[in-house]
């Protein structure tokens, strides 16, 4: 496991926040560097565990997923779907212009 404290310089914190699409104020970066570093340092105790030959477990749910008929079960819900839209135009969501 990589050494977390070394990995998390201010540029790394900014890179993670960018990947997560969360804007950080400059004054937040140092505090997050400390907090995230402490959490990742604590997590490194897993280095002690021998996991050789162990298959990863993603979920404890049933291994086989149920099948259903490939058929339309719902529809014509435009108004319900758009009811919570922060901004809309007719039957569409609107966002700031992305193509000039």
């Amino acid at each position, binding site marked *: *496991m*990589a050494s977390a404290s070394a*990995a998390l310089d201010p540029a790394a*914190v900014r890179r*993670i*926040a960018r*990947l*997560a*699409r*969360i*804007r*950080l*104020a400059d004054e937040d970066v140092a505090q*997050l560097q400390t*907090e*995230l570093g*402490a*959490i*990742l340092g*604590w*997590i490194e*105790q*897993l280095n*002690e*565990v021998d*996991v050789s030959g*162990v*298959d*990863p*477990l*993603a*979920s*404890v*749910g*049933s291994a086989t*997923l*149920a099948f*259903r008929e490939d058929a339309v079960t719902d529809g014509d*819900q435009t108004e*319900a*779907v758009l*009811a*919570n*839209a*922060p*901004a809309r135009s007719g039957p569409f*969501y609107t*966002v*700031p*212009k*992305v193509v000039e």
Partner: protein
Amino acid sequence: MTLEFTLSGARDALRARRISSRELTEAHLATIAELEPELHAFITVTPEQALAQADAADAAIGRGEGGPLAGLPVAIKDLFCTKGVKTTAASRILEPFVPPYESTVTANMLRDGAVFLGKTNLDEFAMGSSTTTSAFGPTINPWQRRGSNTQLVPGGSSGGSAAAVAAGMALASTGTDTGGSIRQPASFCGIVGMKPTYGRCSRWGVVAFASSLDQPGPFARTVEDAAILLGSMAGHDPKDSTSVNRPVPDYAAACRRGVKGLRIGIPREYRADGTPAEIEALWNQGIAWLRDAGAEIVDVSLPHTKYGLATYYIVAPAEASSNLARYDGVRFGLRVPANDLTDLYEETRAAGFGAEVRRRILIGTYVLSAGYYDAYYLKAQKVRALILRDFTDAFERVDALLTPTAPSAAFGLGEKSDDPVQMYLNDVFTVPASMAGVPGISVPAGLDTDGLPLGLQVLGRHFDEETVFAVGAALEAAAGFSARPGIRMEAGR
């Protein structure tokens, strides 16, 4: 009068027409009005809806109809989508959200005639152990230390649901448990909280935190009441592919089975350093109670217990960072206007998420990012497999496990909030069962020297909630826990 009723007692009184649902509902609304300024257990109270549902239930009962929950006033964690009633997850980013649909669990409860009093407070997106990360202010525990008026936390994340039931603001309530969010607040508030097996209750319409761990479950003041409520909440749902298609047993009947001949495992790794002596003593008392009731006590080992929390704090944030990507300011919830799309995403998410949710999204993003995935996420999934194997091995030798629920009683508002890792340690006894997906219950078993409630936890095999309820009911009978919190309607304060 609201604390004098159990769910089952109120059900019997309604059926015998000794009381109407309108009277019962009005009494609970009055208790909420009286205590809410002090406790802040609710984000939204819905009196008109509750009274309309109560009148409908009274009419149904009058016709000799009415389901298992007919006319019973309950509260819903504000993580369950409720049609036409705002559902916030205690987050600014969902503050304006009014679901156009009903979650499966709450739909099941409405089918059975329940009366919904309102939506209860929680840690933002269910991330926390104190209900202090709510964007709408903390919930206060109705319990106080003897001779002190220091405000205590109700635990979390389902702290509003637990406080409401403890204070008599609702007969029972729903919660969700991802790493202990039902069992730990139940312990802190002196009530019963049950996390069913992963897959027992549908997650459809429940705001997602960590999808491989999240599981809805009931809070109530007795084990039987929790069993009754789970019977309505549970069931197969084709809309949740992890929901299991197997019949829902009569959980209330299982409460009367007793523990004679059951083998109860005592996991030695739960005797953690630093656990207060009175919690150890209560655990030993619980062992003696079950032995006296006819159970066989067996020492067992769950060797990977100490790695449960660290594994959890990789898996849960990883899943959360993925689930919470949907809050982008475009389709629902908060939007901070911006000149381009990336700014819109980044400004909306910066304004909408609180500090703990932001930390977990960033941790999750990091452990899933290129170059770190194998070292963190894949490693955690392998340790998770070992934790599951610990439980599977133990349950070949025993029918259930008995442990403390939490390493402390309720702590003060503001304590443990400076250091995230200190807060995470609250869930040391509850997280391993979450990682393994097994069912667990917390039952109030005693008071500490400050007069605060402490819970004991019973864990069982996958889909063997019945044995968990049977053992929980035996503990409840032996403990005879009858203490009530200081902040309540009848206290004559």
